């Protein structure tokens, strides 16, 4: 897979995730790096998304040597995180995740924390932001998606667009005025997107299918990880199909053109920034990608607030 991707692209970011990617032995990643190093002229970035519980010094040595960036998963401070992230027998993983984060920081590894916003932590994001800020941890915030393991608990944990939007606005206000602000996405990217009209976040990009594919453990190709095993979205297999043909297939072109088919988004002032949002967020609620992103109302609430706040600051800093 590594070679096939690098054969046809000059710049590739590999995002290794699961489940838990470190259930795979380190030799798996060593082999991947071995393939990557056969392409010295290509730009390669490796990210791995883990809960940190299996991270050892040996793994960190490897990540340091080959410049793997590590994203850790935490949904809040210990009390909140324990509700959604724990071992099979209900034990807390918070301390082992934090231990791995601190070790990564000591080695100056690129690392951050991914927070999945759900019903249990939506009102505690500010509290976790303060904690992360004290610990010098960069954050990225995503809503819980209706896919994978979350499907089993979505009715209990899923969050509606208005609640998600309000949570983001509250968090934005804390971050925006904070003197020692950490990087917090999607806000960093969103501000740049609003000011440049170039969307950097996959959900808001002109089409995620210009940049992303997902390859499963058996080589199955899907538009992104959220669609893995979703009927109708299988695009081929990296072991048996020509990757270039998959990437230029009519099916992928159709996916890539999605935003242009959603006419209800055309008059929206934020259309150039969100590009009709994430096709999976649309699909998970309606079964049809050609509908608006489920979180459309959240984005509108957030975009209008961020735009107002940012433009007020820019006016004050204008050179007369």
């Amino acid at each position, binding site marked *: 897979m590594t070679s096939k991707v690098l054969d046809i692209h000059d710049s590739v970011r590999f995002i290794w995730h699961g489940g838990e990617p470190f259930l795979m032995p380190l030799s798996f990643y060593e082999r991947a790096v071995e393939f990557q190093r056969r392409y010295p002229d290509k730009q390669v970035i490796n990210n791995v998304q883990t809960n940190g519980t299996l991270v050892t010094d040996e793994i960190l040595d490897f990540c340091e040597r080959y410049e793997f960036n590590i994203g850790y998963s935490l949904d809040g401070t210990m009390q909140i995180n324990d509700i959604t992230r724990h071992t099979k027998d209900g034990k807390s993983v918070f301390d082992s995740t934090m231990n791995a984060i601190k070790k990564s920081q000591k080695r100056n590894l690129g690392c951050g924390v991914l927070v999945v916003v759900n019903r249990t932590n939506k009102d505690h994001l500010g509290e976790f932001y303060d904690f992360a800020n004290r610990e010098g941890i960069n954050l990225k915030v995503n809503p819980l998606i209706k896919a994978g393991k979350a499907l089993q608990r979505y009715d209990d944990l899923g969050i509606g667009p208005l609640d998600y939007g309000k949570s983001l606005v509250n968090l934005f206000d804390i971050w925006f005025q904070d003197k020692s602000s950490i990087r917090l996405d999607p806000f960093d990217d969103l*501000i740049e997107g609003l*000011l*440049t009209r170039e969307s950097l976040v996959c959900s808001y990009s002109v089409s995620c299918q210009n940049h992303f594919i997902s390859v499963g453990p058996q080589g199955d190709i899907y538009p992104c990880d959220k669609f893995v095993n979703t009927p109708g979205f299988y695009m081929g297999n990296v072991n048996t199909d020509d990757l270039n043909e998959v990437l230029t297939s009519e099916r992928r072109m159709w996916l890539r053109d999605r935003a242009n088919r959603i006419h209800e988004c055309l008059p929206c002032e934020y259309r150039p920034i969100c590009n009709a949002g994430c096709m999976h967020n649309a699909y998970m609620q309606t079964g049809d990608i050609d509908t608006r992103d489920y979180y459309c109302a959240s984005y509108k609430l957030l975009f209008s607030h961020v735009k107002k706040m940012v433009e007020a600051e820019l006016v004050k800093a*204008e*050179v007369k």
Partner: protein
Amino acid sequence: MPCDSLLRYIDSRHVGYNDKIIDIERIESPALARVLRNYAEARGPMRYTHNWNNWPNWPNTPGPDFPCDSNFPRR
């Protein structure tokens, strides 16, 4: 959306936004100042996004020979 940006690099302290020049040092929000500094740093004097048909000639900006950097590698 290549070459269709509202924000553009001027120098390490200034960015252009619409028809205004913004002094990053005067931004009160540390978060916004950091985003703009990162933007300016990433673009540098030779790399930035702009639309030459729409913008006046800002001081200290390179000429239109420099390519649009809409494919500039992201973080």
